[in-house]
């Protein structure tokens, strides 16, 4: 890509956002019938659905832990979710994303309530823009709450990036592909970081600025997550809204 490409015009990003602005976020809890908890999220062009099953019995049994539940997290991209069709099944990237995403949620799940069991989190990326792992964590966090899994708090996640030497919030595809750095972060409402990755090139000062920027994004997402759960509970209390399925 041409090095002279500018990511800003009059301080405004290519998609019309200011540097510290999130893409539109839409979250809906309780979208699946079979799963114990579920959540659908749109973050910009990302469309991601998460489901939670459990706590339930562990198979194979030798994976059981006697003092707590284990958490499994499977991040998966639908074949048609990306520009060039993706072969179905996990690749090295999705294995890594699953690992860091699981570790982003484990700190808040009260796993010791459920010894010898498993809590399964499944995340399907239906359409991918930049930031699918953070969208997945946001959805998974709400799906866990929807499933009634006891948690210390929600986890909220978004990335900061660096383009044209400037720190931005929530990079979209072009900013991610052609920018200078990407730093996904997940955190609890009280500021504990549960996921942190970075690639690209940041000075130590830029790294700090990126983290502060991402933190602000997480705070906004946290509010949207809470609202989705409140909406979900209202629907549950008012059965007329629940559709014909019940």
């Amino acid at each position, binding site marked *: 890509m041409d090095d002279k490409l500018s990511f800003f015009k009059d301080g405004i990003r290519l998609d019309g956002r200011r540097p510290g602005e999130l893409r539109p976020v839409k979250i809906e809890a309780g979208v699946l*019938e*079979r799963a114990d908890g579920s959540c659908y999220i749109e973050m910009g062009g990302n469309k991601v659905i998460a489901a939670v099953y459990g706590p339930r019995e562990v198979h194979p049994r030798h994976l059981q832990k006697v003092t707590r539940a284990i958490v499994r997290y499977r991040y998966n991209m639908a*074949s*048609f979710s990306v520009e060039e*069709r993706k072969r179905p099944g996990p690749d090295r990237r999705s294995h890594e994303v699953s690992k860091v995403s699981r570790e982003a949620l484990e700190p808040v799940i009260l796993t010791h309530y459920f010894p010898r069991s498993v809590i399964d989190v499944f995340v*399907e990326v239906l359409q991918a823009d930049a930031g699918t792992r953070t969208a997945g964590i946001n959805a998974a966090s709400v799906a866990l709450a929807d499933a009634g899994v006891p948690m210390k708090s929600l986890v909220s996640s978004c990335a900061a990036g660096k383009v044209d030497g400037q720190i931005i919030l929530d990079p979209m595809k072009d900013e991610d592909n052609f920018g200078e750095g990407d730093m996904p972060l997940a955190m609890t409402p009280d500021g504990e970081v549960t996921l942190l990755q970075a690639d690209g090139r940041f000075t130590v000062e830029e790294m700090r600025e990126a983290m502060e920027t991402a933190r602000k994004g997480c705070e906004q997402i946290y509010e949207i997550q809470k609202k989705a759960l409140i909406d979900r509970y209202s629907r549950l209390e008012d059965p007329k809204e629940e559709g014909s*399925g019940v």
Partner: protein
Amino acid sequence: MSNNVMSEIRKDYLYHLVMNNERADGRSFDQYREISLETGVIKKADGSARVRLGNTQVLVGVKIQPGEPYSDSPDRGVIITNAELVPLASPNFEPGPPNEHGIELARLVDRGVRESKSIDLDALCITPGQKVWILFIDIHILDDCGNIMDASSLGAIAALMTAKVPAEQYGLGEDWPLPVRDIPVATTVVEFGGVLMSDPDTDEETAADTKLTVITTADGSVCGMQKRGPGPLSMDNIYRIVDISCEKAKEIREKFLDV
């Protein structure tokens, strides 16, 4: 699918309902659950459709890319159909490559598209013997509340009917709509307690354990048929099911796929 547990009590309950000419959700025996169909839902796909059949949800994406033809049909496009029964959709689905249920589902959808000749594969040739358009039909089950077969089949043909061949992206001229010549529709019936029920939900599927899926074309021909599940069917019931299926397929085609 190994743990498709259903208590005997639930099965008895369904049986007693049938004796009273009823189904658990109040439908008549040949009535489908509410169907909703939305196309163009995935921008990254060249065609897509989200189907809701009651609480069952299926997403189908079609991707069209240039690639090599098969050596035994060098001048024809290629259709590859795949179904992912991801563990998000049911406690009975497990991660990993498609098992026999996923394979059967994909192959049935594929046969419907192929045997109805709905896609003109000759029109998908780019350079004979070298480059043709490859249609990937990817079925993603989101919520399995029964009869994912009919939902997948409906989603597949709807996605194809709204798909565009992305020629421009590959420097091959302007994009053009994928030509679809026939509209195969799959309908599934189970026999349980002596009656035939269309569009079984999860409990009915489990209780009945044998289904017959019939795929019919716009002119009322049968272009695919498959008995599924470990139980027998009499020839008379097969004939009755085919008649029911033709009629239901016609209704679905007219209501949702009328071009």
